[in-house]
């Protein structure tokens, strides 16, 4: 049973399209994150949700909109995709307040052509 699962694993799409990435965790964690990893491997935090509420929104374009229907799910919707959006997107979860480890999903490799 995968702790944090993302779908799809690969996504190839054309510029201008809208796409979504889904994430689910079965660990009972209250906090979920989205990270973007670029070609240089830098892991940059994008969003953080705690119990379905957005608590961190880094300087991410408005084209990116996270949605959390419940605390086990955090989806990422991207409008009007651009070439620069190509990256690997990781979902992660943790239990806040106790400095515990973060568990990552397997990543979604997004390629915009």
């Amino acid at each position, binding site marked *: 049973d995968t702790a944090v699962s993302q779908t799809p694993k690969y996504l190839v799409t054309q510029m201008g399209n809208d796409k979504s990435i889904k994430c689910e965790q079965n660990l009972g964690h209250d906090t979920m*994150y989205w990270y973007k990893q670029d070609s*240089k*491997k*830098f*892991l940059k*935090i994008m969003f*953080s949700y*705690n119990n379905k509420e957005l*608590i*961190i*929104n880094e300087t991410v374009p408005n084209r990116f909109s996270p949605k959390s229907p419940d605390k086990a799910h955090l989806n990422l919707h991207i409008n009007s995709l651009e070439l620069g959006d190509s990256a690997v997107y*990781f979902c*992660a979860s*943790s239990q*806040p*307040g106790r*400095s*515990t*480890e*973060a*568990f*990552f*999903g*397997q*990543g979604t490799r997004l390629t915009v052509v």
Partner: protein
Amino acid sequence: QQPVQSPQAVILREGEDAVINCSSSKALYSVHWYRQKHGEAPIFLMILLKGGEQKGHDKISASFNEKKQQSSLYLTASQLSYSGTYFCGTEISSIQGAQKLVFGQGTRLTINP
């Protein structure tokens, strides 16, 4: 705000030792260490919370200095399976007041037979 890692890359022969450093200009709340293999998700290694703390399992250990501004990861008698990119992470306060987990730029470790 994110910690700075050094070196950026290390190439070793199997059986050699390596040290990866993670530093900050301000005291860190905590230090997390993760390893990411190519095409996979980052996997948690360990977390240090207290100044002067040392932790380890098997031949991978880490220390956190007294001022909590630097941590080092030690890989002893490296094995081929240790290859990957190592990230240190720390929790910092976001503009919204919540804690967020941010990462250093990563250190790529290559172990050759």
